[in-house]
């Protein structure tokens, strides 16, 4: 099992910063106005994912490593 990436849709404001930084791992859902992780996120470079999570304006991205360690929780519950 790879990395787990989730985005809290209540927190996300659709800035698109994560998509610009790691387009393979995130995409914008224009109908919802928010970013969502793409399937390839599970195999994306963890360092890049954490950079995207750290830079997320609302800290909506949570990254959990393959071993279950929370690498970035942000403001997600």
């Amino acid at each position, binding site marked *: 099992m790879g990395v787990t990436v989730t985005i809290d849709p209540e927190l*996300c404001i*659709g*800035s698109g910063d994560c998509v*610009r930084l790691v387009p393979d791992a995130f995409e914008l859902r224009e109908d919802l*106005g928010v970013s969502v992780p793409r399937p390839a996120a599970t195999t994306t470079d963890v360092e890049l994912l954490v950079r995207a999570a750290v830079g997320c304006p609302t800290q909506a991205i949570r990254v959990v490593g393959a071993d279950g360690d929370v690498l970035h929780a942000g403001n997600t519950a």
Partner: protein
Amino acid sequence: MTLLSSFPATIELTRYEDIRAALFHPDLSRTFDTRSYDDGNIRDGIVSIQHGAVHRARRRVENTQFRPDHLRLYERELFPAVMNALLDRLLVGAEVDLFSIGERLACVLASRRAGLDIREDDLDELAVIAEFVDIFSQGAAILDAKDPDAVRALVYAAYERFERDYVGPARERRQALLDAHARGEIGPEALTHDILTALLAHRADPALEMADERRIVREVATYLQGGTHTTGQTICNAVDLLFEAAAERPDLLERVATDRLVAQRAVHETLRLRPTTPKIRRRAVAEVTIAGRTIPPDSLVVLDVTAGNRDPELFGERPDAFDPDRTVTPDVPRWGLSFGAGPHICPGRTVGGGLPAPEDEPNDEHLYGLVALFLQEVIRRGIEPLPGRGERDTRTERFNRWAHFWIRVGSPRAAASAR
């Protein structure tokens, strides 16, 4: 009437990392004081001072106007055409006000993005829009105004004219298009793409709190002002700092004229050294801890962006120097915290500043930002600041606002074919 009531404590943060942490903190609000909010707040309900769920809902809708495909269209097609046409007409003579040119240029594009239908080649109309921007800018900086009551009265009167002459007709046209689209009479390509259209299309969503017509007027005014003010100020600051640095490093002018990446880094250095909002304020809505320091509820938190942007740990040994060749780590923006950070980060940062400047050759997707294009073009056209070049805006306590910036036009510096 004062805008701020008394606060139990005022906390000032000056370190980059502390300011950044504060800007991300969900319990540090832009809503200062609910009493002044309810009683005469000229910015009531606008996105910039919303907090929490309403702010997020609004940004989800408004951020759609700042997608890379929109920005590419602006930077590669709309802006160069408008800029060159305007510079051909205005950048002539022995004494030219660069601030005025920059502001008018920014007015054209900000009007489009906000959703106003203006005659873009009509200099008189651009002067009217620039006057609105000036008034709304005073409103945005009312916390630093020398006479807040006068500013408040001025802004209220301006909103009325702005609605009557601009937002009202623009809203009518856009609503008719949206209605026709809803009836299946026109396709999505026939709709306008701007903030006003996006708000009208989503205003039935109660999460946006946009039922009040006057809020729509204020929101459109916010985007017009925000999209104009920083450009007008930053182009003057960039020229000011660039020529000051060129006294010791004369190659800088040629490099800016011939290499757009250098121009972009020059703009980022300018923003870092002279942020449009030198001090950002927040109110603690709960007890907050930043860098081990406890901030009591209802404290006023002052974030000194000018100091944070000169943190030597992040920006090197000479953080006060203007150095477009400065090295920073990838996780630190070259503009520091001048666009803010966290949920209220400036939505137009990529319009004005472009995408983060890469260390090596940029790829085809890179955006340099409109101010870099503008700076490069005026340097190519051979401008020089006149002695005693600038006049500061004396209506505000903010140190970095220009009212005029006088230049002359000399011999062209570089071929227009350079990047």
